[in-house]
């Protein structure tokens, strides 16, 4: 005797290999760059900066995910993958939320949290041998400052340039 009907849910079934199910973020790979949050069309992935606690949170809400795999596409670390997990039905929406908490790097001048995570800075440091030295130091220097310190550094640089120009023009006048 043969049956047409699938015995599911009494016998488990597997989704086909090309099936795009629940996105899963690997907490040992994610650096918190926010590329996925940027690309996610329905904003199922959000990034949240909590300055009081000094952490950045990636919040993935599967109840809003349309399984387009754009997050998988853009992730520079290959940290997010769409699994074949499909048995997601739940009476509570909180069950569908994954949070990844990453510590923020603290400003090397004032100690306030920057908008980069410790892992982002580590990742940038690991790039040292691939980048020309001056370029690398420039990047690292601005990465390790908080927004206020970075701003004041740029302002003082600008002022310096202005003054140099002004003095130069004065010199020109006297000549």
């Amino acid at each position, binding site marked *: 005797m043969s049956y047409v*009907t*699938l015995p599911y849910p009494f016998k488990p079934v597997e989704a086909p290999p090309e099936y795009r199910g629940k996105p899963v973020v690997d907490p040992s790979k994610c650096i918190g760059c926010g590329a996925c949050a940027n690309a996610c069309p329905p904003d199922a992935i959000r990034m949240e900066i909590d300055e009081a606690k000094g952490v950045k949170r990636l919040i993935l809400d599967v109840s809003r995910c349309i399984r387009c795999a754009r997050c998988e596409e853009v992730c520079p670390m290959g940290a997010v993958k769409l699994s074949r997990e499909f048995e997601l039905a739940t009476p509570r929406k*909180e069950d569908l939320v994954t*949070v990844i908490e990453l510590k923020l790097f603290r400003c090397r001048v004032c100690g306030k949290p920057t908008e980069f995570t410790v892992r982002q800075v580590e990742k940038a440091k*690991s790039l040292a041998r691939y980048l020309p030295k001056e370029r690398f130091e420039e990047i690292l220097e601005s990465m390790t400052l908080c927004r206020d310190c970075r701003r004041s550094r740029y302002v003082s640089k600008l002022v310096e340039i202005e003054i140099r120009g002004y003095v130069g023009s004065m010199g020109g006048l006297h000549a």
Partner: protein
Amino acid sequence: MRRKPRMRSVWVFHLNTGACNGCDIEILDVLTPYYDAERLGIKLVGSPRHADALLVTGPLTRQTYYAAKAVYEAMPPTPRIVIAVGTCACSGGIFYDSYAVHGGIDKLLPVDMYVPGCPPRPEEIIYGLAQLLGLVEKKVRGETYRDEEHEFRPEAPIVDRLWYDLRQVLTRIVGYFDRETVLNEFVSLVKEAYRRSNPRQALRSLVEEYCAKEEDPRIALAMRLLLNEFETLVDRYRDEGYPVEDLLKGLE
């Protein structure tokens, strides 16, 4: 969650609150002989007055808000189960920030079962229904991970970047599904070639050999394109000062 009596059979009314029809078609699938929801006692009825449960799809548009309310009120006072089928019904999904939608049926009605997916496969819907009937247990739960609990290794980034770029090229030719397989084949050829003395030449001949054996012309084409793109990228990285060829030699 409100406790609902466990039931042997649930009569459902299908309510579309502005779905794109994707989820509705999956609900139809659930009723076909292949999935046969009626063997679980689930029966589709034509009027909310006969229904124990609502199968709601769609992001609850402003147009359907009052109709949905009327349908809910027309149901018998118990058990009034609401099942949100699809990402739209769960949270608004792709339409969540539109001016024209309320963003999920839970903005109007208390929901007993969320079945996310865009659209969910018929198995997912059956899984949700089976949970209501007490046949299966819930599997998912919310997770919070902290970075100190997981060791982090910043990996060899330029080589990874190279594969990502090649993957983009492949997507355009062989699509999303086959690209990983084809790319893995290519990566193994690259590794093989960079173990030899003249890697460039070796890779070219390896790809030629591969293409001669390959029966699917699309894969052969993809391989040749990959080779082309690979050489361009390696040249570009080298000109920018990245020691990419040394890194490739170091791959196991």
